């Protein structure tokens, strides 16, 4: 106890107001629990402030500019001028609207909002240090706590973020001028999304990846569509090379990379964006005080009710492990609170859909063919190339495909991989199919609107049944 502390009590204390935390808080309010939400920085967390929303805002904005400038084929001749500061300011407006919305919703649902950095002080207490000199602190006693502190960009040795030369995705989304050249370290989804944004804005982008392919989390043919398109946009890829050190040179920097044979290469650029992944924020919580330890990756282990090893402590979102996706965190937040309220809730979803906002987008859900086979299913797969989609052609974007993986015996949809325009939206239908235990026949018998991209889903399904109309059945 710190002198001057005021102790208050709450049923549910939530640390972190990102998607996992704020959803948990609002749900708790709906369930008439007394709930306190502690946030050190900004409501909405990484997702709203430094991740999903700002990146998608900039991706959309750059697409507008890029599409206009490359639409000669459609008979459009334009040379848009991009004012990055204006674009960022529009993005900030979007973010502000959403974060203030979250704050209002929390208040409307009776959530006590506390600003400050929380750390555990004992079995059932946290101390919240308020930001700013002399702002003091308070102690909050809780019945249940939900850790929802999220994650932060991971750095690599010799590449500490300085906000000037070495930046993370967070700074990249807040630049006030388009860099002339950029080295992106890491070809995962964040690296690929931001590379695409800057390439479309005219930046000379070089991607350095330690592994031997882009988007290593995705199947080769999925990743290849995106990488090919990125190369068309002028992005250079160097695989099998790890960034080892950097130095200032003239206006910019020189980055040295090393391959497995020890060969050194040098890349000059204005800045380096390090996007090698994200790590959970659990080191600021003083978890020792409640007898909770993290695994090697800094994650808190949880069960299917979002419970940690300590009875009354739950963990949701990025701190609870992969996949680090906002929508997974939201669902976990909901479940944690419902469990606290005594409801028979559990995390028994069959799949977590994922999307990558590259060009074209990637949307996946459930199992790949390989995963399904490993799980013991005999599979049947159907595909629909986007070049056979009327709607895709009218959009002038016909790269990619829809692939559906199903169980060959009963026809249950097990998963899908889409790389196509609007794949992030298209995947929703197949997510529902996986959750419902829908069969190929169920989707085939559902009339899809024409002309839409969604028709590609039913075509892929019919392809799996050997009954495709618009492609040759394999």
């Amino acid at each position, binding site marked *: 106890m710190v002198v001057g502390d005021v102790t208050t009590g709450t049923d549910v204390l939530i640390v972190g107001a990102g998607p996992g935390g704020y959803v948990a808080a609002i749900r708790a309010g709906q369930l008439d629990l007394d709930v306190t939400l502690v946030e050190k920085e900004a409501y909405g967390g990484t997702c709203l402030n430094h991740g999903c929303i700002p990146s998608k805002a900039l991706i959309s904005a750059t697409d507008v500019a890029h599409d206009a400038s490359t639409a000669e084929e459609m008979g459009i001749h334009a040379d848009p001028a991009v004012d990055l500061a204006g674009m960022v300011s529009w993005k900030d407006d979007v973010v502000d609207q959403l974060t203030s919305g979250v704050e209002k919703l929390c208040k409307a649902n009776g959530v006590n909002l506390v600003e400050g950095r929380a750390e555990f002080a004992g079995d059932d207490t946290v101390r919240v240090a308020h930001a700013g000199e002399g702002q003091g602190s308070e102690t909050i006693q809780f019945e249940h706590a939900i850790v929802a502190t999220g994650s932060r960009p991971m750095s690599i040795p010799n590449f500490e973020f300085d906000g000037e030369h070495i930046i993370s995705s967070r700074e990249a989304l807040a630049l006030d001028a388009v860099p002339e050249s950029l080295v992106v370290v890491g070809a995962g989804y964040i690296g690929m999304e931001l590379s695409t944004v800057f390439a479309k804005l005219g930046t000379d982008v070089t991607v350095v990846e330690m592994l031997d392919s882009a988007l290593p989390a995705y199947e080769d043919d999925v990743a290849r569509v995106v990488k090919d398109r990125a190369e068309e946009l002028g992005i250079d890829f160097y695989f099998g090379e790890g960034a080892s050190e950097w130095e200032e040179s003239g206006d910019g920097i020189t980055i040295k990379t090393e391959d497995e044979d020890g060969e050194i290469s040098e890349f000059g650029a204005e800045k380096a964006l390090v996007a090698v992944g994200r790590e959970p924020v659990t080191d600021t919580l003083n978890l020792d005080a409640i007898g909770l330890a993290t695994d090697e990756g800094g994650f808190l282990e949880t*069960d*299917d*009710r979002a419970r940690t090893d300590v009875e009354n402590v739950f963990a949701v979102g990025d701190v609870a492990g992969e996949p680090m996706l906002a929508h997974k965190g939201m669902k976990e937040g909901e479940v944690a609170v419902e469990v*606290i309220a005594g409801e028979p809730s559990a995390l028994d979803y*069959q799949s977590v859909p994922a999307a990558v906002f590259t060009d074209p987008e990637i949307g996946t859900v459930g199992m790949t063919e390989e995963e399904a086979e490993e799980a013991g299913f005999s599979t049947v797969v159907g595909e629909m190339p986007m070049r056979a989609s009327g709607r895709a052609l009218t959009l002038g974007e016909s790269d990619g495909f829809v692939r559906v993986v199903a169980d060959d015996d009963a026809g249950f949809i097990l998963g899908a991989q889409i790389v196509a325009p609007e794949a992030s939206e298209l995947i929703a239908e197949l997510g529902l199919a996986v959750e419902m*235990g829908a069969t190929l026949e169920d989707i085939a018998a559902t009339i899809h609107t024409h002309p839409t991209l969604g028709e590609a889903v039913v075509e892929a399904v019919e392809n799996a049944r050997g009954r495709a109309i618009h492609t040759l059945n394999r």
Partner: protein
Amino acid sequence: MVREFELPDVGEGVAEGEIVDWLVEEGDAVEEDQPVAEVETDKAVVDVPSPVNGSVREIHAEAGEMVPVGTVIITFAEEGDDESDEATSTEESTETDATTETSAAAEAETTAEETADEETPTASGRVFAAPSARRLARELGVDIGNIDGSGPGGRVSEHDVRAAAEDATGAGGEEESDSPEPAATRIEDSDEADAGETDTAGGGAAQASSASQSASSGAMAGESADRERTLAAPATRKLAADSGVDIDAVPTDEERDGEAFVTPAAIESYAEAQQAAQDADRAALAGSREEERIPYRGVRRTIGQQMAASKYTAPHVTHHDEVDVTALVEARTDLKELADEQGISLSYMPFVMKACVAALREFPMVNSMLDEEAEEIVQKKYYNIGVATATDAGLMVPVVEDADRKNMLQLASEMNELVEKARERTISRDEMQGGTFTITNVGAIGGEYATPIVNHPEVAILALGAIKEKPRVKDGEIVPRKVMTLSLSIDHRVVDGAIAAQFTNRVEEFLETPQRLLLEA
């Protein structure tokens, strides 16, 4: 189709009800509107009617149990639907499963084990079911992984989940029945061995283990385990707290990460065992100091809550006085005969009601309530007089509405009817609500004075003592007179002592000279 019946919201502010008695048993055939249970809510006992023609599928609450409004207390199977459907669907699914198995031999004798193995067509253990069916399985405590789905390809539907839940609860008694039971029961039995591996969240495993626990060692359930640390879901902890059980004392076979893990089922069986032990102890002690514990429920508890609310909310002051009712006794004796001729029993109460209404008109503060939220005193321009009535179940207050607009005989007959209903406990909540002033006749049983508690949110209550012959001084002579005592309790926030005294005086004037009532409307 299965129809659930939730305890309905029978009136404002009623949050729960007590199941007094079940009038049917599981399996009984029922007709639409046939009463199936008696539920006591607040002060009234209501019949719960069946919404369908069909049969009773499951009774979810025991007689004597307090049930929150909205809880499913009974499920019905609609006519022509239930068992026959279940049988066909099970058969169908067995057939479908069998056809996927090419061996003709397997088709000929599908054993329990084989059905279990076939339950999902793959090795992954993945169960195909809609999220709503998954949630239902958790709610009913069934492991969805153990359910044989009847949908396309073995998809598990909500119906399948309900059927499995029912089989699981019904399975305990009749083991190894050789009649063609639905597959889920058999699967559950065969899965019992590796139940530990199944996620306890589903509950099927929990149920299986608790069943084996109670079967194998009834004594064990009662023994305290006395651990230092116990893992359990928060909801289970709440259940333990609500049941007055120390979770560390609950025996369990289950473990999570090497720690003892307690399920709701374990809590329930332990709590029951503890209760039984306590009852036994009490019985053993009964010889020396006999006591009986009566649940503080239903009407008794409602009265208690109402009284406490009134006493702790309204500062009570009671004004006492005596009134010479000799003339009233005479008047009533004369009128009683006339009333009897009309088949109406005329007590003193209608006279008192009339006297009170007349006095209330003059002192409207006494016929009011305090709206605390709005910070307003609400003076009622209508006169609904409550008549406190002792019943076997406890105090009830039927309300005679618009007493000012009814004549003496109407008041008498209506009041008699309401009082009778209260005593028989057939009175509805509506008939006990909306009072503006209450009269309680303590004298009927005996006693001189009382300090009645105001029937909140009214602000005054009048208690009548017994009419007794007492010596009075009249013109210097001591004469015997009929005297009744009056005790008026008031909510002093609204009514001052002076008004209480003036009001009582006015009531007395009418009772002393009952002819004056003739001048009243």
